[in-house]
């Protein structure tokens, strides 16, 4: 269980993308996502998708891993894609009873599918190429301005680190408890929804109990090492912007201006 989930898994490497500062990666990711949705016709969509594919390829992580992470949401993508075919205006291509397929509907379907697929792919780049500690560190640094409003940014980042760190531990624990209950004849594979939810109780209660126990132990261990929040805390690895970040920024700006130009130059799509 859980071994097939690649979404959100870190894969160490030395590619250009790996060497980018985690802060630039987060900010660029957000702008890529924005521009995926700004793209308003086929030309601009093609441009941003190609750029995203280029980024994906330059991570030097096997494309299979990206496909795997997309498999999780495959159903959602197909479902929304197919549903979109039937909504839309414009020239009617095919009609039967109350079902109408229009040019706009097909455009919609293609757009939704490509957008979601690109979105997942480019988001995977961030989690695949950034270690969890770098990621939370970057989030902490990016949220720093919020300390003005007395928001405890360090504490939030620490909680995120701990949560990420304990995902595999909890998965393993779940596996163990499930096996133990299965050995006592718990049946988790058959029955209707209600039966299955009920069958989870013998797994969830021990899991809860052990999570609290672990949380308690961890808090104790942190206190024993004199942890008292973010004040005056130094870092072993300091995030630094470098030439790679500048290059990534310029590359992205070119792409983004291209998207805008395409939007202006070519006519918008019928929806």
């Amino acid at each position: 269980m859980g071994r097939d989930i690649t979404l959100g898994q870190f894969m160490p490497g030395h590619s250009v993308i790996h060497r980018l500062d985690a802060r630039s990666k987060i900010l660029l990711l957000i702008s890529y996502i924005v521009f995926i949705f700004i793209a308003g016709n086929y030309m601009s969509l093609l441009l941003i998708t190609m750029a995203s594919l280029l980024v994906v390829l330059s991570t030097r992580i096997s494309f299979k891993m990206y496909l795997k992470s997309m498999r999780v949401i495959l159903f959602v993508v197909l479902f929304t894609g197919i549903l979109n075919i039937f909504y839309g205006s414009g020239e009617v291509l095919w009609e039967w009873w109350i079902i109408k397929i229009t040019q706009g509907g097909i455009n919609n379907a293609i757009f939704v599918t490509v957008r979601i697929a690109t979105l997942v792919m480019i988001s995977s780049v961030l989690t695949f190429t950034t270690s969890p500690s770098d990621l939370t560190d970057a989030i902490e640094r990016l949220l720093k301005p919020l300390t003005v409003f007395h928001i405890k940014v360090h504490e939030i980042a620490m909680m995120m680190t701990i949560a990420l760190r304990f995902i595999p531990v909890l998965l393993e624990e779940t596996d163990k408890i499930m096996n133990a209950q299965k050995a006592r004849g718990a049946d988790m594979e058959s029955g209707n929804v209600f039966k299955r939810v009920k069958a989870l109780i013998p797994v969830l209660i021990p899991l809860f109990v052990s999570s609290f126990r672990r949380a308690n132990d961890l808090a104790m261990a942190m206190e024993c090492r004199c942890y008292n929040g973010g004040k005056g805390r130094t870092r072993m690895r300091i995030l630094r912007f470098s030439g790679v970040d500048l290059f990534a920024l310029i590359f992205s700006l070119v792409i983004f201006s291209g998207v805008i130009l395409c939007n202006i130059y070519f006519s918008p799509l019928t929806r």
Partner: protein
Amino acid sequence: MAVLKAENIRLVYGAGTAFEKTALKDLSFEIEKGEFIGIIGHTGSGKSTLVQLLNGLLRPTYGKIYLNGKDIWHEPKKIREVRFKVGMVFQYPEYQLFEETVYKDISFGPVNMGLSEEEIDKRVREAAGFVGLKDELLTKSPFDLSGGEKRRAAIAGVIAMDPDVLILDEPTAGLDPLGRDALLSQISSYHSVRKNTVLLVSHSMEDIARIADRILVLSHGEKVMLDTAENVFSRGSELEELGLRVPQITRIMMLLRESGIPVNTNILTVEQAFNEIVNLSV
């Protein structure tokens, strides 16, 4: 007829991926009804994998496992039946407790088996008796028990299914010496009363030597020995090469013999050693 028989079982984790790892290599053995088998091996030798295969929690990549002469994966849909017949107590089983009362928790297995209420009641009380849980504890919440009591309650939950084969994975880990001795003697009295088969995985050579009829030694997923305790522990140097050792008392007798005192070295318990030395001086 052997109650459990493994035929060339092999288990490969993550077959076909970069993380492929062979946990067990072509293991074959037979265990007779009523035997008490000790399983020893260094960390990562495949002990835990083996015991999970035996009750159908894992499925072998190759090979077959027979329970009472029937292939356990013959009908995958009925694998639950196998799990009722081969009871499995995991390491630190106290973490699987979840019910409101100890009584309900012990009855989880029997209820899943679909037994009648009287039968369940009988089994719960018997199982609690075997592990020495007092009646008044049965109405308490399992989370209010002490660590040792929790462990006993969890073991009772498996015994209550009245399995043909009982497997215990390190049941004494983390208990104090008194608790350990008490639990082991309860397990051995359960074994002698019920006359069923017990498999005990342990790191403690002393425990195994005292209680097991035969010992299965695993190393790197392979069967190295399956023999009586005397025979296994007479091969002390081989065991040490595998990262294991003989019981301390056996080691003492071996050292005595090396220093020229003519004692027998196939001694496994302190009592035996005591008698041997007393006889010597007579």
